């Protein structure tokens, strides 16, 4: 049986671990909030860019022959995997890696990878996958610039004909307790695919955050009303400057940037959500251990006292 001092030392060490996990949980909670707020802020942009693209394609359907829209026979597929840089977030990275691996196994075409985040890179490098580019250290709040760099690389690989299809594998944020690894096709862009355009913006931010945002103001409502009007007369005689084709050519990369940006934000939120859950569980476990050790310590102390008393009594009895 361990002595009281040993047990005390253990309790101290578990207590300090508990302090750390508790702090990490709170940090994760605040970062989760940050990521969600950013997503809410980017929502008007998403809505507008989507609306402009739809109207543009409606007005000039014959101009839709953009390199990023036209489908080609698929020979090589590029997967973009978004993971975290660091661990300590439960099964978040493992889930993504497993999903990615399953996809790769099933795939009959040649596949290459772009990894965002250290975890995914390390794993697939060990697996010997073909990693064409890697991005790391995006920090705790991914910025639009990061997304633009990633998207630029994707567009470059696609337009130069190295790959014929690009899919994004990231973690969808359902709730703090649940993050679902998801695959999404980025290129070629399918303009009327609703899952593509509306996926990241409404379902996960609305429930948790109510902010005085752009859309909630009376001005925003007026804009909505006007937009409704516009939809009913879609074929406006727009003047295009320089030309519809040129506009589409600059719009689509921006749209792609935005998709990657949303996915980065959502992944970050998922990571922080997973981390929060994991750290909460760790804190609970530490509490359980402390309780167990405290009980053991009290027993040991009691036993020591009892032993001492019986020794004294025994000693006194021997003297008589």
């Amino acid at each position, binding site marked *: 049986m361990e002595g009281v001092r040993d047990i005390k030392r253990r309790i101290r060490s578990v207590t300090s671990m508990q302090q750390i996990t508790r702090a990490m949980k709170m940090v994760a909670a605040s970062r989760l909030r940050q990521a969600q707020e950013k997503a809410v*802020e980017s929502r008007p*942009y998403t809505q507008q860019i989507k609306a402009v693209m739809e109207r543009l394609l409606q007005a000039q359907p014959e101009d839709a022959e953009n390199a990023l829209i036209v489908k080609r026979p698929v020979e090589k597929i590029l997967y973009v995997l978004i993971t975290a840089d660091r661990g300590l977030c439960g099964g978040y990275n493992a889930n993504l890696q497993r999903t990615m691996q399953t996809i790769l196994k099933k795939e009959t075409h040649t596949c290459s990878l772009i990894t965002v985040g250290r975890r995914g890179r390390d794993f697939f490098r060990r697996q010997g996958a073909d990693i064409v580019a890697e991005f790391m250290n995006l920090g705790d709040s991914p910025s*639009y610039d990061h997304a633009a760099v990633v998207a630029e690389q994707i567009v470059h690989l696609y337009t130069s004909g190295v790959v014929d299809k690009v899919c994004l594998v990231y973690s969808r944020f359902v709730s703090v307790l649940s993050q679902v690894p998801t695959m999404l096709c980025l290129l070629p862009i399918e303009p009327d695919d609703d899952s593509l355009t509306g996926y990241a913006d409404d379902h996960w931010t609305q429930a948790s955050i109510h902010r005085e945002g752009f859309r909630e103001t009376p001005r925003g409502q007026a804009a909505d009303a*006007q937009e409704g009007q516009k939809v009913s007369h879609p074929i406006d005689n727009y003047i295009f*400057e*320089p030309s*519809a084709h040129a*506009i589409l050519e600059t719009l689509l990369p*921006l749209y792609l940037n935005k998709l990657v940006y949303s996915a980065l934000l959502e992944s970050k939120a998922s990571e922080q959500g997973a981390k929060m859950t994991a750290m909460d569980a760790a804190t609970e476990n530490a509490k359980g251990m402390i309780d167990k050790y405290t009980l053991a310590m009290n027993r040991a102390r009691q036993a020591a006292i009892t032993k001492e008393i019986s020794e004294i009594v025994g000693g006194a009895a021997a003297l008589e």
Partner: protein
Amino acid sequence: MAGTFFFQVVSPVGAVLTEDVQFVVLPGTEGELGILPNHTPLMSSVACGVVRYTLHDEVKKMAVSGGFVEVSHNQVTLLAETAELAEHIDCFRAEDAKARAEERLKVAMSMKDANDIDLIRAEAALKRAISRIGASDQGNKFS
């Protein structure tokens, strides 16, 4: 004044401006675009530069770095990759950025096997810095 129209500027990091304005001048890729109320429907790409708008008879400025504008039904929507209002621009920082960009441009041009991407990036950075300085309130003092 013929009245006002709705002008909104949105960037990926949020809505920058939503106001009823009287007049807007945008740096279109094909030259400056002036927009008054009841403008005909228009879509144009927007270059990096300074946007001027008249709000309550007062001209205000902001810096944008590329994007799109859509005009229809007295509603002007500017989708910008970045957009900063004049009052949010730190002129000294913009001056620093400009100096840095010029330096990088020089380096990129001096190298014989000049990497095009470096050159384009440096140029874009310089353009952004110049438009920020142009848009900032203090900008005129320095130029």
